[in-house]
């Protein structure tokens, strides 16, 4: 009773929070403008960071490792393929279309009634489908035969992508086929799917086939035959040679340079995952440090019984580890600050003009004040520390002022350390910006945290391919020459340990630890070094256009789509880009910057390509930021309109995302689903579908199964409205029972929620550890959540098309109860409404 009341209370909106949400919205917009202003002032750094070319070996290793786990992730569902993705499974074709892509396939008839033919009703229906976002072949063809052919197409495509054969083609195919499988049914989805969908989308956009691939091997072989390849011991040393009298066409490098932005987008995405999930973990269990204890004691996850360890470490070591997770996840994004700062320092770009420096300072101060304002306004409607809002906001501003002073100190008068723990250093250590970015915010610290975090989860818990996908992203943080050096050193060491086997397999240069092959010489004349770029006034116009679009929508709410303002702004910027490209045609930047003496990386694209890709990057990063705004009442007024503006883009690019894993709190009960089937003779069978049954709980748990996730989702052990799955699952059990029992349907199927409360860490510490099976026996609860009477349940009967396949006796036509959705009438009504709305708009105008 109390639980129900609390659950209802959770759904009651916080009126005070709703009231302040417009103010929060304006403050957040002001903060976003400040961030944009800082970036506009640093536009040269922004475009050099995102739009230059780099060594392809980093992303190539990521391709190989990540795609291997893409395959492993899909294959991890092998035992449920037909259940999840075919017309014999939980959702028949028409039901899958209706529950997962209702709007997109609203104009597609199911053919269940004579006046509702199967197929698209008209061209408008085709157009509606093409607008996405769920492009799955399995919405149209999903017999087991077709599914297996589809799966093999995916497997072959993914293997070819992994080895780098026709890499672009098979990369796109792998992405399409993987999503074609996944979007047919969301029942088994975990955070894992989001990781693989997002990262694969970025990977497919990278030219990852230009190293460590069959494609590059074939290319080099062909060039070598033609005498056009620059090799290790020849001219250029593998990095390519410009055309000369000796080589009129020049010599091609072994590793051509590729656009660096996809790899950097993967880095940014990983940081985004962490900061989102870290900041969403605001519940009392996280704050008290008990999350690891509860997560580890979930019977659905642990590989080995953790209760004894929990009783010893639950109130001590586990709490430290919980805080290490919380702080690490929230702070991981600082890795990008470290990387980018070091990159900026190494580039030795000329300082900004005084005016731009002041604009930057004012914008940054505005950002700090804006965020302090958000805290101040939202303070009364949130759980807060026991200090006043004024004190907290003042403290916030003070922290930033302190960081600013510290940064100046590190820049102009760095600390010099002569002694550490009483030991004199041979050379004094200078604690400057570079040192901080290496040893505090560097990859060597935060990536090691990332590895340790996932290694712990992987060792203690079984959550499928989430860890492997996340760990694979580590390679995106390494540059091509680093990867090449690492591989060479590993090969070199192995060749010394196993001289007769590995020593003979690896190249001689590796055995001898010769210098790695360089990537293409950045000075090759074929590389892009034009001087074109958008002037700063154009970028400010762009920023103004984006803000103007928002203001037009909020102030006037016009009948036309306010995003036309944004499109118009993009058009203006495109025109300026074109004008600049023409005006600077023929001009080339020097290879070595005359002021800094640093070699400039060439551009990844020409001027127009940079304008397009640069614009899309700004749009995409902004879209993800808007999408991930937390679901709070104090953001209600602008969160949904903001998400609506970017939803189509993110969903169609398969980069829509949410990272609230174990947030705000982890579950504190073990929840299972029991399925009871009453057969025709009245006998009740327990199908033993969850880990309350011994046969479903192998220890140690090595191979993951999605059964547990699906059970939680169906029976209510997951967040969100998932109870609607219950009727479809019960109906499938009705059909499946009939299928396995000569066509005879059971009387009823009952879904029972079974659960028990995990004792608190203190209880386990004080009273000693518990044995899960015993505790379930002693303190478990059961509740029937859904009952399906198979005879009268919609689609609770085994349909004749499956009976025909299996050679079972057919049902009389009137005994099967299909789900009539009346789609054609609804589609025509929808078209009519749309016509009237258009006419009304015309009249208004």
């Amino acid at each position, binding site marked *: 009773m109390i639980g129900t009341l609390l659950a209802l209370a959770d759904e009651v909106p916080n009126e005070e929070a709703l009231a302040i949400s417009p103010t929060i919205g304006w403050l957040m917009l002001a903060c976003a403008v400040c961030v944009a202003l800082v970036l506009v002032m640093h536009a040269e750094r922004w475009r050099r960071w995102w739009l230059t070319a780099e060594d392809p070996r980093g992303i190539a290793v990521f391709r190989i490792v990540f795609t291997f786990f893409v395959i492993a992730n899909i294959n991890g569902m092998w035992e449920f393929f037909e259940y999840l993705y075919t017309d014999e499974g939980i959702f028949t074709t028409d039901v899958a279309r209706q529950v997962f892509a209702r709007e997109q396939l609203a104009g597609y008839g199911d053919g269940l009634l004579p006046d509702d033919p199967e197929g698209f009703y008209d061209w408008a229906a085709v157009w509606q489908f093409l607008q996405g976002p769920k492009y799955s072949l399995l919405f149209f063809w999903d017999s087991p035969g077709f599914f297996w052919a589809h799966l093999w197409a995916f497997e072959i495509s993914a293997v070819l992508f992994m080895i780098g054969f026709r890499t672009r083609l098979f990369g796109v195919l792998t992405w399409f086929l993987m999503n074609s499988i996944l979007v047919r049914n969301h029942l088994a989805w975990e955070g894992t799917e989001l990781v693989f969908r997002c990262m694969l989308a970025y990977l497919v956009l990278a030219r990852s086939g230009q190293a460590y691939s069959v494609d590059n091997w074939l290319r080099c072989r062909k060039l070598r035959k033609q005498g056009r390849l620059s090799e290790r011991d020849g001219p250029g040393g593998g990095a390519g040679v410009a055309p000369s009298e000796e080589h009129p066409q020049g010599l091609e490098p072994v590793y051509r340079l590729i656009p660096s932005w996809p790899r950097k987008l993967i880095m940014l995405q990983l940081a985004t995952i962490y900061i989102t999930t870290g900041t969403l973990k605001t519940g009392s269990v996280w704050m008290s440090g008990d999350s690891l204890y509860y997560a580890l004691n979930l019977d659905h996850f642990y590989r080995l*019984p953790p209760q004894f360890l929990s009783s010893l470490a639950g109130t001590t070591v586990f709490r430290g580890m919980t805080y290490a997770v919380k702080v690490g996840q929230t702070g991981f994004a600082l890795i990008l600050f470290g990387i980018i700062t070091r990159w900026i320092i190494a580039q030795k770009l000329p300082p900004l003009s005084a005016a731009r420096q002041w604009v930057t300072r004012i914008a940054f101060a505005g950002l700090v004040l804006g965020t302090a304002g958000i805290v101040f306004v939202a303070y009364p409607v949130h759980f807060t520390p026991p200090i006043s809002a004024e004190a907290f906001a003042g403290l916030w501003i003070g922290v930033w002022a302190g960081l600013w002073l510290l940064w100046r100190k590190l820049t102009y008068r760095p600390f010099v350390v002569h002694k550490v723990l009483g030991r004199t250093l041979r050379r004094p250590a200078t604690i400057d910006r570079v040192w901080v970015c290496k040893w505090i915010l560097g990859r060597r610290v935060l990536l090691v945290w990332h590895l340790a975090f996932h290694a712990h989860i992987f*060792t203690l818990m079984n959550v499928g391919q989430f860890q492997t996908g996340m760990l694979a992203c580590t390679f995106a943080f390494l540059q091509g020459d680093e990867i090449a050096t690492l591989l060479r050193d590993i090969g070199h060491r192995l060749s010394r340990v196993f001289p007769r086997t590995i020593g003979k397999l690896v190249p001689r240069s590796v055995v001898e*630890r010769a210098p790695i092959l360089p990537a293409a*010489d*950045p000075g090759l004349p074929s590389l892009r070094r034009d001087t074109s770029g958008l002037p700063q006034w154009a970028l400010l116009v762009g920023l103004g256009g984006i803000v103007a679009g928002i203001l037009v929508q909020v102030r006037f709410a016009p009948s036309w789509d306010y995003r036309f303002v944004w499109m118009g702004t993009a058009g203006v910027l495109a025109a300026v880009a074109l004008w600049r490209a023409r005006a600077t045609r023929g001009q080339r930047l020097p290879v070595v910057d005359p002021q800094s003496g640093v*070699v400039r990386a060439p551009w990844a694209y020409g001027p127009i390509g940079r304008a397009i890709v640069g614009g899309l990057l700004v749009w995409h990063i902004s879209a993800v930021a808007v999408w991930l705004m937390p679901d709070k009442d104090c953001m209600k007024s602008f969160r949904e309109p903001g998400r609506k503006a970017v939803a189509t883009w993110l969903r169609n690019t398969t980069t829509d995302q949410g990272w609230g894993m174990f947030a705000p709190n982890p579950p504190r009960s073990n929840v299972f689903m029991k399925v009871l089937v009453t057969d025709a003779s009245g006998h009740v069978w327990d199908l033993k579908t969850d880990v309350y049954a011994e046969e479903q709980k192998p220890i140690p748990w090595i191979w993951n199964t999605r059964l547990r996730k699906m059970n939680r989702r169906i029976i209510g052990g997951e967040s969100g409205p998932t109870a609607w799955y219950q009727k479809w699952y019960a109906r499938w059990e009705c059909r499946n029972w009939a299928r396995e029992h000569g066509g005879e349907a059971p009387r009823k199927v009952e879904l029972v929620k079974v659960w028990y409360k995990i004792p608190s860490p203190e209880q386990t510490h004080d009273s000693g550890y518990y044995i899960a099976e015993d505790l379930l026996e002693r303190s478990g609860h059961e509740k029937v959540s859904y009952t399906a009477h198979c005879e009268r349940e919609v689609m609770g009967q085994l349909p004749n098309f499956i009976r025909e396949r299996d050679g079972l006796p057919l049902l009389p036509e009137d005994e099967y109860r299909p789900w009539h959705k009346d789609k054609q009438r609804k589609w025509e009504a929808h078209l009519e409404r749309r016509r009237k709305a258009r006419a009304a708009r015309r009249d208004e105008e």
Partner: protein
Amino acid sequence: MALIAVRLIDLAIFASLGTLWIGGAIFIVVLYRWILRFERERDPIAPDAVPVEAELAATPEPERAEPERIVPRVLPSNAHGALAGHV
């Protein structure tokens, strides 16, 4: 008292965690040695300051014994600044 009921499988997690921590510590030592060596080879002019004792202890013996096997790594001068900007 509670220990009487402990099963062998309840202790297995200690072995898992112990292996992870020992293996992880070894991995971190090997990784940091590799990073420092990589940085010395990439940018031999400005090595990081490390305690004298630690530097001596970290010097791998096999490389001293067989210096002729090590071929100094030479990045092409034109590529260094452009393509190898941040560690």
